[in-house]
C-alpha cells in the first residue's frame, strides 16, 4: 500500500509531458555519490495485515483500572466528542490560512477561546499550545518579555516535568530560576513566598491543585506577589474550576494548564493540548495562534487568525514564540466537551471528583499502616497517603488485580519518603474504590 493513484499509462504520459524518459532523470540534480541504497525498512502490508499487526502490538499494553493521575487523568469522554473530532472535515484540514475556506476550524477555535476565558475568568485566550508543560514554559517567557527583570520563582508544587520543561526552554536565556519549597502542610506558605520575591523577580509560577493534590490559597499568595509588582502565573486543572476559585478571582496575570482532562484520552501522555489565557494588557505579547471575530464584505460574521504580527511567519526571529500551530484537534475536543455540561452539570462533575476522592481518602487513611500526609488540606481528586508498608509490594499486588495503583513519591523530594499519590476521578465506581481499599487492607 502506498496510497498513490497513478497507473502506468498516466505515468508514461506525465513523463512525456515533462520531456524525460524516466523518473530517474527528475533526480539528475542529486550527485550520484549521494544517492541512497535501498532502504532497509520492512513493510508493504495490506490494510488487513496492518490491522492485525497493530492489534498484536496493542495487546502488549495492559488495560488497568486507574488510581493514578499526576498530570494525566482517566476521565469520561462523551460520545459526541469522538463523533465531532472524528469528522474528516476537521481532522484533514490544515491551519486556517485561507480564512474563507476554514470557517469551521476558525469558529471552533473562537468558541474554544471563549470557553477557556469563561472557565478561567481571564480576558483573552490563545488557540492552544502543545501541552500543559510547554504552556507553563511559554507563560514564563511571556512574563520575561514584558518585564525588565529576570528572576523566576517556581513552586516546588508544580509538576516536576513542567519544571524540567521550563528549565529546558529557558536554558539559554538570562533568566534565573529558583524553586520555592512547600511548607509541611503540602502547600506554599505566604511568608516564604513573600521573603523570596525580590526587586528582580519577574514572575512567580504556582500550580493549584498542586502536584501533591493540595489546593493552594491562591488569594493570599497573589497578594504577596502583587505587592512586589511581579507577575503571577497560575497553573490550574480546568476541571477543578467547576468548584475552585478561578485565576481571575485571585488576580493571576496568566493562567495556563493541561487540557487533556477536557475530552482527550490519556494516550501515554499525548497528544493533548495546553491552554493559555491572559489579562487584556498582555494579549499582544501572547505566543501562538489567536482567532478573532470580524465581518465579511456583506457584513456577515466570520472569523480570522488575528494579531498575527506577533508570529514567526511574519516576525521571524523577533516573534513572541516559534510556535507555528496549536493543538487544534484537541482544542476542538475541549470545545465539544465544555459545550454540553451547562454550569450546574460542570460543577457537578467537579463535585463528583471531590466526593469520590474524599470517599477513598477517608477509607484508605483509616487502614492500618496508612495515614493522611496532609490531613486538613483541601484537595480536588488527588491526595497523598503515607504508608509503613512496602510500596513496591502494594503496587505489585494491585497490578495483579488489574489496578494501576497510586504513584510512588519516594523520588519526589525529602518530605515524601513512603508516600503515595492517589487519584480518584468520576470514572471510578464505589465498587472499584472498595475493592482497592480491601486489597490495601490485606497488605
Amino acid at each position, binding site marked *: 500500500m502506498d496510497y498513490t493513484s497513478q497507473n502506468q499509462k498516466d505515468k508514461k504520459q506525465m513523463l512525456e509531458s515533462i520531456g524525460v524518459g524516466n523518473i530517474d532523470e527528475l533526480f539528475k540534480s542529486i550527485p550520484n555519490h549521494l544517492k541512497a541504497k535501498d532502504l532497509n525498512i520492512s513493510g508493504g502490508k495490506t490494510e488487513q495485515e496492518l490491522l492485525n499487526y497493530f492489534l498484536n502490538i*496493542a495487546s502488549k499494553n495492559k488495560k488497568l483500572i486507574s488510581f493514578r493521575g499526576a498530570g494525566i487523568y482517566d476521565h469520561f469522554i462523551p460520545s459526541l466528542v469522538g463523533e465531532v473530532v472524528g469528522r474528516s472535515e476537521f481532522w484533514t484540514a490544515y491551519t486556517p490560512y485561507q480564512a474563507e475556506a*476554514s470557517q469551521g476550524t476558525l469558529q471552533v477555535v*473562537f468558541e474554544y477561546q471563549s*470557553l477557556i476565558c469563561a472557565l478561567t475568568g481571564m480576558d483573552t485566550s490563545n488557540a492552544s499550545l502543545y501541552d500543559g508543560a510547554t504552556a507553563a514554559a511559554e507563560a514564563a517567557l511571556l512574563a520575561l518579555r514584558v518585564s525588565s527583570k529576570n528572576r523566576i520563582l517556581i513552586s516546588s508544587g508544580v509538576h516536576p516535568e513542567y519544571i524540567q520543561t521550563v528549565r529546558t526552554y529557558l536554558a539559554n536565556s538570562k533568566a534565573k530560576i529558583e524553586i520555592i519549597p512547600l511548607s509541611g502542610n503540602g502547600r506554599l506558605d505566604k511568608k516564604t513566598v513573600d521573603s523570596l520575591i525580590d526587586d528582580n523577580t519577574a514572575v512567580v509560577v504556582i500550580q493549584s491543585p498542586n502536584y501533591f493534590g493540595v489546593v493552594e490559597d491562591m488569594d493570599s499568595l497573589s497578594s504577596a506577589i502583587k505587592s512586589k509588582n511581579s507577575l503571577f502565573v497560575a497553573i490550574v486543572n480546568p476541571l477543578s474550576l467547576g468548584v475552585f476559585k478561578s485565576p481571575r478571582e485571585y488576580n493571576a496575570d496568566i493562567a495556563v494548564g493541561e487540557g487533556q482532562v477536557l475530552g482527550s484520552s490519556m494516550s501515554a501522555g499525548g497528544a493533548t493540548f495546553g491552554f493559555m489565557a491572559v489579562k487584556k494588557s498582555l494579549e499582544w505579547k501572547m505566543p501562538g495562534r489567536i482567532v478573532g471575530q470580524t465581518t*465579511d464584505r456583506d457584513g456577515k460574521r466570520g472569523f480570522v487568525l488575528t494579531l498575527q504580527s506577533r508570529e514567526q511567519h511574519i516576525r521571524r526571529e523577533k516573534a513572541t514564540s516559534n510556535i507555528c500551530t496549536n493543538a*487544534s484537534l484537541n482544542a476542538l475536543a475541549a470545545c465539544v466537551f465544555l459545550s454540553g455540561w*451547562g454550569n450546574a452539570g460542570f460543577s457537578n462533575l467537579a463535585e463528583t471528583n471531590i466526593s469520590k476522592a474524599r470517599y477513598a481518602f477517608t477509607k484508605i487513611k483509616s487502614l492500618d499502616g496508612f495515614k493522611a500526609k496532609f490531613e486538613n488540606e483541601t484537595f480536588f481528586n488527588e491526595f497523598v497517603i503515607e504508608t509503613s508498608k512496602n510500596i513496591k509490594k502494594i503496587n505489585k499486588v494491585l497490578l495483579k488485580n488489574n489496578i494501576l495503583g497510586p504513584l510512588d513519591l519516594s523520588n519526589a523530594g525529602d518530605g515524601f519518603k513512603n508516600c503515595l499519590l492517589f487519584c480518584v476521578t468520576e470514572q471510578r465506581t464505589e465498587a472499584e474504590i472498595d475493592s482497592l481499599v480491601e486489597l490495601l487492607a490485606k497488605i
Partner: protein
Amino acid sequence: MEKLLNELSSECQPAYGVECDVAINAQVPENLKRSIPLGLPSIAENDLLRHFTNLSRKNYALSTVFYPLGSCTMKYNPLINERIAGNDAFNNVHPYQPIETMQGVLEVMYELEKDLCEVAGMDTFSLQQAAGAHGEFAGLLVIAEYFKSIKQKRRKIIVPDSAHGTNPASAAFAGFEIVPLKSEPDGSVSLDKLKEVLTPEVAAMMLTVPNTLGIFEKSIDEVSKLVHDNGSLLYYDGANLNAVMGIVRPGDMGFDVMHINLHKTFSTPHGGGGPGSGPIGVKSFLEPFLPVPRVEKKKDKYVLNYKKSKSIGKLKAFFGNFPVILKAYAYVKALGGKGLKNVSEQAVLNANYMLAKFKDKVDVPAGDRCMHEFVLSPKTLLKNDIRTIDIAKRLLDYGYYAPTIYFPLIVDEAIMIEPTETESKETLDKFVNVVNKIILEESCQEPQKLKDAPINAPVRRLNEVEAARKPILKWE
C-alpha cells in the same frame, strides 16, 4: 451563518451528565471556592451535534478538496491509521504506568525511531517534540549543549532568507543570534556569501533541502565541507523530506541534526493545526544531548532511560504525541522501504508534471525542473491591480484550497504549489487548467471576479484589518 454556542444556549437539559455513586461531599472553604459564574453554555446533544457538524462543513478539508499547499505536504491521511490509533488499548495507557504494562507503546516508539534513522541516514531519533517548530527548537538546543560541552562559544546560526519563518524564530528562541544569508534567485546557497558569514562564532547553518523553491541544493557537498571545516554543524529542516525518501539521505549529505514533520511526510493528519509531531534525528556524537526519556531495548524488553546527564532535558511532559507517532509508524509499515521511495518519486513526478504545464505560461523563478514542489511568480502577468491574494481567493470559488502564497519571501507574488504523490493526474490536470484560466483569462477580462472572490465559499472576503484593530477574541 452558524450561531455561536452562547447563542444556542438555553434552559434545556444539557448534553452530558454524571452520576455520583457515593454521597456528594464537596464543601470547600469559602476562600478557595469559586464565586463567579462559570459562563458555560447549556445545549442539548442533538443541537450540539448539528452545530458542530454544520461547522465542519464550512471547512475545505483534504477529505473534500485538493489542497496544494506548498511546504505543507497535504497528502492523503490513510483511514487505517485512524482506526489503529482509535484502539483503546493505546488510548487508555497512562504515561506513568509500569513499563511492563505498556510494552506496545514503547515498541511502536522504538521501532519508528529505527525506521526514521534508516530513511534519514541518522544514528538516532527522539520523538518527544510536538511539532516541527518544536523539533527545530530541540535540535538547536542540542547544538547549543554540544558546544557548551566542548567549551566553545558559538552563538550564531546562519539562516538563508528563503527558509521557513520557524527557522530564525526557533534559533532566536534557543538563544542564538541569527545571521541571515541571502540566497540565489532559485533559493540555493551562494558559496561566496556563505564564506563571508562563516565566522568562528557560527554554531550551525540551517538548510532546507530541497529548498523552499523546490530545488535540490546542488552545492550541498561544498556547503557541508565549508560548514564543517569551520567547526560548525549542519541542520536539516525536514519540511521537504517528501521529495527525497529513498533517493538521498540527510545524514549522507553531511547533516548532523534534523527534524521531520510526521504530519507532512508520514501522512498523519494536520488536524486543522495540530497535534503534529517533530522527531529530531542526530549523528551519534550528539546522542547524549537528546531529550529524556530515551526508549531503549534491553533483551526483549523495552525500557525508558531517564539517566542521561548531558541531556537538554524535557521539551514537554511525558514522551511525545503518541497517537501521531503510532499513525506514522502504521504508515511506514504500510509502505516499507520500497513504498517510501515510490512516494518520493511520485511526488516529484506530480510536481514536475504540473510545472511542465505552467512553465510556458507563468514565470517560474527557479527554472523548469523541480523536486516535490515549485513556485510560480505571476507578477508580470497581473494587471488591473490584481494580486496573488486575489488568485488564491478565486481558487476557493472553484472548490480548491489555495496554494501557499507570498512564501518564500524572496519571490514576488509567490504561489507555492505542492501536489503530493496521492493526487491523480486528472486532479492535477483540472487544477492547472483552472489556475491558468484565472491568471491568463479572468485576471485580464474579468478582474472584478477576482477582486470579489470568493463568492461561493461560506463567507466572502473577511476584514482582517478591523479584526486586528479592534480585536474581538471571545463571545461578547
